[in-house]
């Protein structure tokens, strides 16, 4: 792991009118690691994700990719920086098959300008194989016939195919059963092993503790703490989420009551 984190946010502020959703948030995500972003409802997780993805623009604060300051002003610009968000609603076309979905908007073409189906199918197979995906029977299967876990797999594989540097997974296991959750979590691990900086947004404490290397806890729009997984236990994380502090960790008692600093 290099010393420069792939994604670094410093002092990010974001407000919608009079409502301060994020204030002075510092956040880092390193290549080859899974960084979990947790917090209670309304803590600002989604807003932070949307700021990184270029859907919202930050009011203040620094944004560094590979140590270089950048500005993200729209989703296309974010994609060009190698940032990919896998949304909860997945954004797959049900009437298309897996290959067609994985290459949507970036279709390969032959010299004649027609679709290069063979190259696309081969690359899709290779990508799924590199992630050791075995749950998908055929890459020419229609997405409509896939289960939730399989769809999540396709959506994640898409980001690998496009060589994204930073992949944000928004609640990837929220709608899944036990076995499927397990498969998706393994996939998340393998994604990180390929050198991607994975940001996992989740409500599920088990998932987070199982796969994360680093845990960032948001509390009322502030970053309560970003800690190494190895340094904390479940109780501490839960305390950070619910109270903003846990012993020495987290916000000061004054801050954690929501008072303005």
């Amino acid at each position, binding site marked *: 792991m290099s010393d420069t984190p792939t994604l670094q946010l410093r002092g990010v502020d974001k407000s919608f009118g009079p409502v301060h959703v994020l204030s002075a948030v510092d956040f880092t995500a390193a290549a080859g690691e899974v960084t979990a972003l947790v917090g209670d409802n309304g803590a600002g997780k989604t807003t932070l994700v949307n700021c990184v993805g270029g859907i919202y623009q930050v009011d203040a604060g620094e944004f560094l990719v590979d140590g270089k300051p950048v500005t993200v002003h729209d989703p296309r610009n974010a994609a060009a920086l190698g940032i990919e968000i896998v949304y909860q609603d997945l954004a797959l076309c049900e009437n298309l098959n897996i290959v067609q979905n994985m290459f949507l908007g970036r279709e390969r073409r032959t010299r004649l300008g027609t679709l290069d189906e063979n190259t696309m199918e081969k690359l899709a197979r290779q990508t799924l194989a590199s992630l050791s995906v075995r749950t998908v*029977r055929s890459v020419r299967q229609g997405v409509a016939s896939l289960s939730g876990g399989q769809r999540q797999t396709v959506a994640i594989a898409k980001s690998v195919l496009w060589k994204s540097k930073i992949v944000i997974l928004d609640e990837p296991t929220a709608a899944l059963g036990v076995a499927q959750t397990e498969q998706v979590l393994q996939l998340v691990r393998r994604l990180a092993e390929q050198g991607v900086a994975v940001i996992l947004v989740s409500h599920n404490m088990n998932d987070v503790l199982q796969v994360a290397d680093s845990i960032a806890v948001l509390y009322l729009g502030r970053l309560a703490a970003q800690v190494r997984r190895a340094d904390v236990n479940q109780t501490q994380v839960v305390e950070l989420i619910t109270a903003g502090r846990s012993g020495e960790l987290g916000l000061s008692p004054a801050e954690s009551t929501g008072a303005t600093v």
Partner: protein
Amino acid sequence: MSAQADEIVEQNDQDPAAEVEGLPALTVYTRSYLARVKGGQLGSIPAMTGLIVISAVFAVVHPGFLSAYNIEALVIQAAPIIIMAMGLIFVLLLGEIDLSAGTTGGLCAAIMAVLLLRRGAPWWLGVIAALASGVAIGLSMGWLRARIGIPSFVITLATFLAFQGATLILIGGQGSVILPGNSPLIGLENSFSPLWAGWALLAVAVAGYAAIKINDAAGRRRAALPPTPMAVIAVKVVTLAVLGALFTYVMGINRNLTSNAFFDNKAQGMPWVVLLLVLLFAVWHFVLSRTRYGRHLYAVGGNEEASRRAGIVVSRIRISVFAICSAMAAVSGIAAASLLQSVQSNAGAGNTLLLAVGAAVIGGTSLFGGHGRMIDAVLGGLVVAVIINGMSDLIQGSNSAGYEYVVTGAVLLLAAGFDAVVRRGRAT
């Protein structure tokens, strides 16, 4: 989301492509085809079945139904419907509707006829003017839909009415404009290609189809992907060749009953409009199945939000389909004018559009967007033409037109209901 669909398929690691392990390619192909059918992707099966069953019924009750004369009549009646349905499929793929395609076709044909007769323009200029009008109309309607955000139903209902009026104004008081008798435009639906040309067309079509399929299979083999089994390709090519040869043979029979040794005006050969149909089908099928634009049409029809996130400019796609639909409506209007050898002041009104939408839906195109192919227009159009043609022989008397409307409406409703039920099956 069945748990069953999630079962882990055990395969050897070194070959990710080995889903065919131990099984012959034909078995794999058949299995995946059956799985698709079971999953609600029926393709052309319902339209094919319908076409065969309905034709068989009419052939039994009305002996002249399968005569060369009647088959030719069927084809030239179906042509304007098929052409319009081809255009409508683009709009339907996006889950939109163009209620004005019929009257757009009528208006474009009227523009052409008026240019020809009142301005003395050459026929090709008239055709270009009609096509250009179609494109312009489509672009405007698409712009209203995509940029202003008026539902397509309302836009095209308005233009349905307005274009009917515009045609009426253009044609004026005399009720119809008769096309010049020597014009090649009339020949489109009313004269026939030489016999050799029909067979040549068939040879080109079959050879081209076989070449494309074999080339595809070879490409897949080169890319180390499981290729389509040769047996499947052979069956498809032979089916096309046999059906095509049968049709070409029937079209080669002289249909003019009055021709004899002294009066030698035979009516034999392929109607020219068939060549136009084959050409239009080939072009649009290629666009839908092999180009990036075609892929994006399906994507936008399937999930607009996903398409936008994938970087597809949805509004541009939306405007383009209306332009294609209206241009095809213009071609359809020209074919209809050729069939009637004139443009009536009510051209394209009435049930013209309904028949074309019916053709697309019967063929298998979904009214909900995302599903549809060019072959749907051809098969569906033939089904509709067979129903109209057969009914007109079957139901006689003063109320026959009324019964025809009722039956056609019922068939459309049946097809749309089928589409809705199949779609529900797909979703789960």
